[in-house]
């Protein structure tokens, strides 16, 4: 039994933690949240310099060809840092979509740029309230162009291209397209979201030039597979954030006095934080399972990803809201940092589909694989 990260991954984790503590304390998150910039350029440059955008890309495309466990390690630390950068859009979604379905030419065109940080990618699926299905997609492709509106698209204002899910008359009802976002038939308007430390746009494609990614009519299956993989990485970000929230709450409770004693000595606070610890531990262990399934491309990936995703979503929500509660009134003020985790918890929980959607996916996957824990 070796259900642990190895020495190499632990070294990467230490490096990542040091860099993020140095370059992205909450001051940086606050700067993006309050300012005009869409993301932290200085942090992004540092991340690119470290090669984190190249981690899972093969060497032939200028990547580092490390395993997916390395991505899990980075995801946890980025989640802990509430990093205000387009990493998940560009790395977990756009890069992985190209690796999964890209032609040789598409890989050659984009992967070296993604690896070197010369391009940022994103993924555009949602169009309306409620769970997106192929039948409800209105974005259409015609003679190499796309027409439709995607809302919201994470990091759409800074991305050079988007992988767009469009309706198809064939197969599973959807197809993926690569759309150049600098084209003139593309307009992007900023959308106010719950977490302004990550920018989002409404993307209007009006006959925008695009090229197909993967086969026509296989876009929905590709999206599901891509989201299963990404769910593991999102879950690691959520676990990192949940851990940060718990530590913040604990540290504050230790130094805050009320009724003549640290509030950390009250069982009402201790039990709340013990609950958070339990949720975080279950989520983390499920993330280990997800990491293993992602790294080995195991048949259980759908089950493992959904398990990690559901428990990490619940853990981060709980820890981030109870962190505010533990801080009392101060936790509700703009000047305190609790808000960053609370905002990010909700953003991450809906970014690639809600908790309820992943609960449904989990049971469906269990039924299909006939696995029981």
């Amino acid at each position, binding site marked *: *039994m*070796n*259900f*642990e*990260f*190895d020495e190499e991954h632990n070294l990467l984790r230490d490096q990542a933690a040091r860099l993020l503590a140095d370059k992205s304390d909450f001051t940086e998150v606050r700067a993006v949240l309050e300012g005009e910039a869409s993301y932290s350029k200085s942090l992004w440059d540092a991340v690119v310099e470290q090669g984190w955008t190249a981690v899972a890309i093969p060497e032939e495309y200028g990547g580092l060809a490390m395993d997916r*466990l390395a991505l899990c390690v980075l995801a946890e630390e980025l989640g802990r840092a509430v990093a205000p950068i387009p990493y998940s859009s560009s790395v977990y979604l756009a890069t992985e979509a190209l690796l999964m379905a890209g032609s040789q030419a598409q890989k050659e065109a984009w992967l070296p740029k993604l690896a070197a940080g010369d391009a940022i990618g994103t993924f555009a699926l949602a169009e309306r309230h409620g769970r997106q299905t192929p039948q409800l997609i209105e974005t259409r492709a015609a003679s190499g162009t796309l027409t439709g509106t995607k809302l919201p698209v994470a990091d759409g204002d800074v991305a050079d291209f988007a992988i767009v899910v469009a309706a198809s008359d064939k197969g599973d009802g959807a197809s993926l397209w690569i759309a150049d976002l600098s084209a003139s038939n593309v307009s992007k308007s900023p959308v106010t979201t719950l977490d302004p430390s990550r920018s989002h746009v409404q993307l209007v494609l009006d006959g925008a030039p695009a090229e197909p990614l993967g086969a026509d009519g296989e876009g929905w299956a590709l999206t599901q597979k891509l989201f299963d993989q990404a769910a593991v990485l999102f879950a690691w970000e959520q676990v990192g954030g949940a851990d940060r929230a*718990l530590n913040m709450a*604990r540290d504050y*409770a*230790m130094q805050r006095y009320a009724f003549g*004693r*640290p509030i*950390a*000595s*009250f*069982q009402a*606070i*201790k*039990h709340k*934080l*013990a*609950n958070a*610890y*339990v949720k975080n*531990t*279950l*989520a*983390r*262990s*499920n993330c*280990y*399972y997800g*990491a*293993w399934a992602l*790294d080995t491309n195991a048949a259980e990936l759908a089950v493992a990803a*959904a*398990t990690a995703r*559901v*428990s990490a979503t*619940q853990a981060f929500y709980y820890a981030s809201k109870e962190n505010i509660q533990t801080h009392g009134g101060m936790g509700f003020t703009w000047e305190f940092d609790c808000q960053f985790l609370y905002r990010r918890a909700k953003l991450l929980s809906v970014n690639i589909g809600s908790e*309820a959607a*992943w*609960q*449904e996916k*989990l*049971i469906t996957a*269990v*039924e299909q694989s006939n696995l*029981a*824990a």
Partner: protein
Amino acid sequence: MDFNDSPEEARLREEARKWIRANTPTDQELAGLDYIAQSKLWQKRKYDAGWACIRWPEQYGCRGGSAMEQVIFGQEEGKVGELSGVFAIGQGMAGPTMMAYASEAQKKRYLPPLASGEEIWCQLFSEPAGGSDLAALRTTAVRDGDDWVINGQKIWTSGAHYSDYGILVTRSDPDVPKHKGLTYFFLSMKSPGIEIKPIKQISGDSNFNEVYFNNVRIPDSQRLGEVGQGWQVSITTLMNERMSIGAGGSGANFKRVFDLAQSTYINDRPAIEDSAVRAKLADWYCQESGLKYTSFRTMSALSRGATPGPESSIGKLVGAPKAQEMANFAMDLMDMTGAIRDPELTEQEALFQEVYMAIPGLRIAGGTDEIMANIIAERVLGMPQDIRVDKGVAFKDVPTSASSDGREPARVCA
């Protein structure tokens, strides 16, 4: 990251598997024996072959093996391992305490038959007035020549009626603060003056006893630790208790509820198609999976010879309430027949009804949910202990339910 054994582990697993296959008692061997006799048969066989108490040293007839070896043997033992249950307290808690505090001669005398199952031990800790607040116990020990004279009452003693020996914490000095006035012993359960009465639980079963001490004499040579040091000795026992009480297999698990949801109906459709049912099942799946992979992390640490992290302490705190919720929900799926406990007339032989009635005990035994949460907060998260009004107060002056002036305690409601 992988789930594979190391080469040595694989060798040991193969060896264990072969031995277990060849030596598991047959139905004929077990026929006519009561549960205790069956348990003793299997335990002695394991001991003779070097598979009992795998981590104990060779001088007590054991293997001197690693925690990982013990885990592997337990996994291979499977169902027949349930026969080890009656020895769990003795081997898991009394044994390590004896190893730390008994004399060499005592260890030689008592540890081998404890490992071989020829002698069964029980734990005499909890009292009517000392449960979560164990150190508030009142059973007295008074020195008389070379002996101590014990008077008082213990409760929740598993297996007292079939045990040969017991470990016992007593109050030897009521004039000092509660943790300082305790003294720890072991004694024969056949000692004159011991009276054992079974407790009937809400489930109707009787798994525990009350044990009364009426001028029971224990030689001073059977004291473990110094006079007044009983609390420190108890900590040794309790540290081992937490390692031996795991998630608590209650029988109600995801698979059972999942199966039930396929055979019960909501609005003329199988319940498994109902999204509310699916959401609940998903959460339980996540909890079970989380516990399973937490134990894998623990095993990985053991496998490389490290001490497992604190994450291993969450099993009972997650597992017991989960089983209760599942049982409650499963009976709702049965709807109006959910109340039926007759195994002939209900689903899955009344598993959920039985779990519903048994699980409140598991949420209390070996540390209540609340105590477990305190332990996580204090030992894992480093949060301070609650302020204790009895701190530094002589035990005899500490307020109690029947308060010191003899009045009934104030009632919250009539």
